[in-house]
């Protein structure tokens, strides 16, 4: 297995994702500058089994979080990557925002209902363990992961929500308090084909016992096993 972490201008969890994948999970991983990928770049994405869009403030979150990044060469190349290969894409926090802006995942992430950035550890319920990302977990179990975002309120049109539920695309929901006012407390979803994943919580921030209970590692291990 080989993974790539896409570095966009303003990414700030790129090194974290790289460290966790390569050092904690032991997956050979490259940090890829977003312009070195795609039609004019020299690094084809197809050589990777997993593409991570890390957290951060790509393009300063200006306009809307992810709105400008979706036009980056690396993000534009994702459609081709998904059409031609069989690899997976995981967007964490800002990565999730980019995936919705790019139309690779349904819905949008609006400003938190509190109108404040929220950084805290939250409890999450696993809604569907039958996907590559959640395969190491059990449906219905609760895990702990940190969140750190200003625009994490998941919003989706009513028919879109029905479709998400029908396809069992909701992966994680906030258990207990819904910190950002997300629709149905949704914290993470996938596409109907279970190849594109978006999470507002940061699994990479809880993979070592020094920093937490390691639930993030249990989650990410699922990707390695598939």
């Amino acid at each position: 297995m080989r993974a790539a972490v896409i570095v966009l201008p303003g990414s700030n969890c790129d090194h974290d994702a790289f460290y966790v994948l390569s050092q904690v999970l032991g997956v050979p991983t490259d940090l890829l500058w977003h312009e070195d990928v795609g039609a004019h770049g020299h690094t084809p994405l197809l050589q990777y089994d997993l593409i991570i869009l890390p957290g951060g403030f790509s393009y300063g979150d200006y306009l809307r979080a992810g709105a400008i990044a979706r036009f980056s060469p690396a993000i534009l190349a994702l459609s081709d990557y998904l059409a031609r290969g069989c690899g997976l894409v995981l967007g964490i926090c800002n990565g999730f925002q980019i995936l919705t802006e790019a139309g690779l995942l349904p819905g949008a992430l609006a400003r938190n209902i509190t109108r404040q950035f929220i950084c805290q550890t939250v409890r999450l319920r696993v809604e569907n363990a039958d996907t590559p990302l959640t395969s190491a977990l059990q449906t219905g179990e609760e895990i702990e992961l940190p969140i750190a975002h200003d625009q994490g309120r998941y919003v989706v049109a009513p028919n879109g929500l029905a479709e998400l539920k029908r396809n069992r695309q909701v992966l994680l929901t906030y258990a207990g308090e819904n910190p950002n006012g997300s629709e149905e407390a949704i914290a993470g979803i996938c596409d109907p084909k279970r190849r594109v994943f978006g999470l507002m919580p940061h699994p990479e921030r809880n993979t070592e016992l020094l920093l937490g209970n390691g639930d993030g590692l249990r989650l990410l291990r699922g990707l390695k096993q598939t």
Partner: protein
Amino acid sequence: MPAKLARPSAETLAAGTRQGLTPAELARIVEILGREPGELELGLFALNWSEHCSYKSSKHFLRKLPSESPRVLQGPGENAGVIQLDDELAVAFKVESHNHPSAVEPFNGAATGIGGIIRDILGMGARPIALLDSLRFGEPNVGAHRNTPVLDLLRGVVAGIAHYGNCVGVPTVGGELYFDDAYADDPLVNVLCVGLLHQRGERGLQPYGAVASGVGNVILLVGASTGRDGIHGATFASEELVGEKEAKRPNVQVGDPFKAKLLIEATLEACNVGARRAVPLRGQAQDLPLLIGLQDLGAGGLSTALPEMAARGGVGIELQLEKIPLRTRPMTPYEILLSESQERMVLCVPTGSELRFSRIFHKWGLEAAVIGRVIAEKSFIIRQEQHLLAQVPIEGLAGGPPPPDCALAAPDVVGAGLVPALASPAPASPQPAWEKPADWQARLLALLAAPGIGSRRPIYQQYDHTVQINTVVGPGAGDAAVLRIKDTPYGLVLTIDGNGRYGALDPYQGGAIAVCEAARNLVAVGAEPLGITDGLNFADPNDPEVYWAFAQAIQGLADAAQALEIPFVSGNVSFYNQSVRRKIPPTPIVGMVGLLRDINKRVPMGFQAPGDLIYRIGRARGGIGGSEFLKLFYGRGEAFVPNASPLLDKVELAFESRLLQAMRALAQQGLIRSAHDISEGGLLVTLAESALAGGRGAELDLDGRSEAELFGEWQSRFIVSVAPEAADSVARLLGERELPWACLGRVVPEPLLSLIGAHDHHHTSLHLDELRQAHEQALEGFFA
């Protein structure tokens, strides 16, 4: 040196006075130049000789601060201090204030404060890994109205810190916050940034610095383009805030944390590339590393940054103004030179390598322009096209102005001039009210819910404190923040402390206690204190009493650092924190960095296991002046009982040093299960905090004790918990070191904090849920 009297012309005097220069300084300028200064030259002197840049009123005293230790790689005088951890790792750190800009425009003022200190750390070639903030505001007085001016300021400052710090990806891992009306007109925003330096090839661990050298070498301006931001910010920082704040607004810069993040990555890439040796050029072996020096553009912009670099290198710099990328046109030479546009740095690189470095910044979407060269003549020469606009000796600019004539005078009643409430003497009472047995439950709940003590969660949850995945103990979770250093067993332990109430009572003690308190916080975690950075916040130094207090505070800082053997490596002085109505109390703030050799040996703050014994280690009694308790229950004036009063506690430095060494020994030998220093709120608040942090109750043999005993804030004390089997070893260690201690009780499985009478076994309790609720509500509604 008896200088001949130079007489500036009437025009120079008028123009110079407008820029804040004194007649004596103007005379010196004419003497240095041997002629009248031009407009641009006058601006150069005004900036370089401002209090903010030249430390003219403070540097004489700052020399008293001890700054030596075998670990010091870079002491005071650079953009930041650097302390070596081992052969491969060092930490750079510094405190910087952004008080005046935050008073005028809290959001942008605080945000650019973060940006500035981050660039200081970057200037040493270190990656910023943590931020801590020290904030002071007036009393919030939250009643029916949630839009008090104080809350508006607080919200703006917190939002600005969050905006910038979160986006730039540097975790805010700790801080402190005090409220007092003395800060109502002049809030304080001091920020500590810590960076990590890895060894770089042949350069090893040597930090970069703000230096230009090598005649013919290139000055590269990188980052954002230059606009009309914050012209005269440095001179502004050196003025009292008088009159309408609206009129000051154009001075405040706007930060762009997105660009700052790009600048961090690009600059670190340049530092890595720059650590390699230059390729021999035309057969001539160059023995210079590629990157010679770098400097952030802060107060005064290019006008102060370039002379500083030239002074360090013993060279001159010739600047071509038309080469500077501008954001707005037209700009006058004066505006270009003095612009404080954010997110800019200056690099000095060998001629021939400019393209190589420019490419790095262009890749990150930043500007990079060759704006000047190093010259042999030790002058700062400024040209626009062929026109010579300024030519000033570097030594004249960087050497600072003639020392100002500030007088020192101890006030009759210390603090009376600083805090008006002190003017009325404290009521003399043979049996002060606080010597009566405490109604401890009501008092404790009220203290925990006080804005000065309660949980800071509503603030720190707005800050990203977990990015960079190093935060092992974050805000609110311990006496100090603990960061792991990846690929090492180390824990880096960080704190920032300073209590202005103590400073008002006795500025010497304010300084000494700030050092001791910071050291206690590190030692409570089990760390060895390595170095200090100070933020000195005072009113107008031309006021003899303020200047006296400044000298006293420095002496206190110096004596404590000497006693505890911790060097000062960097710092910041902020004067003129006063309005027409009031002055801030002397507020020395200490940022301290410590090391845990084995992060797994860190000591938590909370009680761990039922049955563990709870000890107080340190002094049994002391003065309670300046305590949160007096302030809350006996009025603000009583909190500031003048220094003549025996109520004011004085830290005994030799004792403190013994205490801290003993605490470190206890941690290293694994004899204690938890430790928490006794500070604001006193003994019972500390015990409650340990109970809450560990989620464990405690039974304490403290029933019937006086308010002063339970809530007094005297110095040099810790609460620790000890497993019963370690009790003998702890007693032996403390006995050998002649340290007083007492067993106060034990940790219990029930979630109750109970006080038990020694004789009648009378039992009063509070449930931990009640304590938590009180603690959590302290700042409730402040950010709604």
